[in-house]
């Protein structure tokens, strides 16, 4: 159905706590240079560009794509920016996907970034709250994320231990990731003993704050071969939402993620995600979310995520490794993360992952999202 779209080139910056040598525009340029080189293309070969970043209040430049366009040499091209909180990068990639699938473009460059060191992350993200109704209580997205985790603790058994297993797994996986900057070995005990920030979220449950950019080149099946003989084909991709303050909102399962996965699995022919996927990359703004994704993505039934984490199956040597790249724990330039996860998954199925190549990986699952934990999507890639 429609045209096939594949990822044919990837590039990301070496993410850092703070890049003092480049502006936001320079950061984007780095990722774009790398992705174009990887795709064996120049900017002339690109038809359209999608730029994605987190909320503009992060870095004090409104509609930054209008500035960044100069740095990447895309003047004159079709350029649009998408934003969606933590899901910005994924949302940008999805818009790019449809530009190719819809015949508007043969090759679309998607670049996503955030330079979080420019601003006050917690304060600016707190402005997602309604100014009339609750903003004065906002503690960034940590306050409500911790609260939703607390609710899942009793009902679904998402214990502090289970989240600590996830946090330790991802932090340790990140050590081998050449693009990550947070590389410290931790044990489950270390996580459990770390300082509570918004309990139950503790210091080591929280990813770093990062500056970083990531870019992918999407191409139609017609021209993909110019860049690579083994594109990562997008077999399904969707991004759904739920109203943030509605009576039936489930704090247990992420319904938008479940809806997106249902749509994507149908498109990609996935009937048994637990068995079929070789590798999974998810965006965990806090460790507790990864447990929620196991269930919402159908990798295990509700209430079984803790057991899945404890079983070792999602460890790097398990039968369904989740976040072999280290996930957000290694680097978290929020608006770029959706594209970083796509890059890590794409390079797995292309057989060229730089952190830890999962042997014979053919089918990958990617998850991303943001907002009030109410914007969620996923994608299936295969080579």
């Amino acid at each position, binding site marked *: 159905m429609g045209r096939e779209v594949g990822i044919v080139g990837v590039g990301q910056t070496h993410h850092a706590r703070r890049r003092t040598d480049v502006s936001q525009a320079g950061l984007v340029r780095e990722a774009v240079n790398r992705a174009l080189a990887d795709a064996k293309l120049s900017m002339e070969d690109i038809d359209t560009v999608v730029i994605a970043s987190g909320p503009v209040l992060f870095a*004090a430049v409104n509609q930054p794509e209008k500035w960044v366009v100069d740095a990447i040499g895309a003047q004159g091209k079709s350029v649009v920016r998408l934003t969606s909180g933590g899901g910005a990068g994924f949302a940008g990639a999805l818009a790019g996907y449809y530009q190719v699938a819809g015949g508007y473009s043969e090759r679309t460059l998607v670049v996503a970034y955030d330079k979080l060191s*420019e601003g006050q992350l917690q304060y600016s993200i707190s402005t997602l709250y309604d100014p009339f109704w609750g903003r004065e209580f906002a503690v960034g997205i940590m306050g409500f994320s911790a609260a939703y985790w607390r609710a899942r603790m009793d009902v679904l058994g998402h214990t502090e231990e289970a989240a600590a297993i996830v946090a330790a797994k991802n932090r340790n996986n990140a050590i081998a990731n050449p693009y990550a900057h947070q590389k410290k070995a931790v044990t489950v005990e270390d996580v459990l003993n770390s300082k509570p920030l918004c309990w139950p979220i503790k210091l080591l449950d929280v990813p770093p704050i990062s500056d970083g950019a990531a870019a992918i080149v999407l191409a139609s099946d017609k021209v993909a071969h110019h860049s690579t003989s083994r594109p990562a084909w997008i077999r399904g991709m969707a991004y759904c939402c739920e109203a943030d303050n*509605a009576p039936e909102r489930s704090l247990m399962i992420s319904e938008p993620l479940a809806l997106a996965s249902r749509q994507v699995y149908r498109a990609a022919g996935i009937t048994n995600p637990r068995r079929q996927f070789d590798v999974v990359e998810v965006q965990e703004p806090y460790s507790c979310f990864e447990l929620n994704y196991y269930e919402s993505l159908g990798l295990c039934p509700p209430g079984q995520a803790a057991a899945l984490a404890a079983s070792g199956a999602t460890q790097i040597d398990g039968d369904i490794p989740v976040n072999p790249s280290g996930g957000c724990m290694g680097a978290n330039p929020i608006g770029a993360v959706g594209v970083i996860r796509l890059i890590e998954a794409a390079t797995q199925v292309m057989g060229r992952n730089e952190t830890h190549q999962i042997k014979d990986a053919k089918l990958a699952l990617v998850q991303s999202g943001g907002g009030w934990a109410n914007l969620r999507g996923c994608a299936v890639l295969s080579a």
Partner: protein
Amino acid sequence: MFYAPDTAPIELPTFHSTIAMPYTLTPGHSAGIFLAEMANHRIVASRFTDGKIIAPAQDFSPTDGEEPVELVQAPETGELTAFTRVDGQIIGLVRLDGCDNAFAHRILADLAELKVGQRVAVRWSVEEAGASIMAMAGFVLAPDAPLGVVKPLVGPAEPLGVVNYAMELNYEHAYGPYYGRLFDEIRENGVVMGVRGSSSDEALLPPREIDDITHKRTGTWKACADTGTIRACSLINMEVFGQTRPVPYAYAEIVLDGASTKMIHIIEIDDLESAKQTIKPGTRVRAIWTKGERKGAVSDIERFEVI
């Protein structure tokens, strides 16, 4: 648009909201050096492979994104290529001698004196002497100024790593009839009122015209009780800018009796460990209203406490 029964437009003032925060912006290499050299009264430009010279210095050519070959020093004189006046201030485009582009800056003259093509020269600022493009106060007419030349940049300063910046955004939000009544009832009667959902008796908080799920009109107004149940909560143990009380305290999503959706508020706690036992999903709480005069805001409820 339609108003549900009991809802009528109220002549309310707007709700003022301010978003203000500091930033540490990173200029990058070329701009970093340009800004640093402003303190030395030197104007730094970029030279590209095709010989083009762009001022102020850029890491990427504005025409095609190419990277520059080297940094050079531009002269202080140039040509006025365009101008306008906004709020009494003249902004013009100036092309420095030897450079290929023009850039925007202030023109320190009267509109009536200006003509496109005139020669202008930098006037350095007395008050603002630091690493900012405003170290140049602006450009003045310099009809007899000789043609300046672009020179090599000898001993460039270290690039400025960060620029301190601040943004303050002020808003005047309309209440609309629903929030208008909500906060009117909070102020006048010390009662939290929502509207019934499109297909349920429970009240939606905050009230709104259209149900979020069904996208149908909501129902009649309903008062919620002062008591409620915690649906989700976390224990805040870190300091963040803008907090209204000292840590630790509990952040809670509370569903008031009679409502179906949450309101967010806080519960004071003594310490983390005991709070983990006493404050959890399902805990019953009661609103503690302010003793003083109510203003018609969420803060008219000071906090909640466990019952």
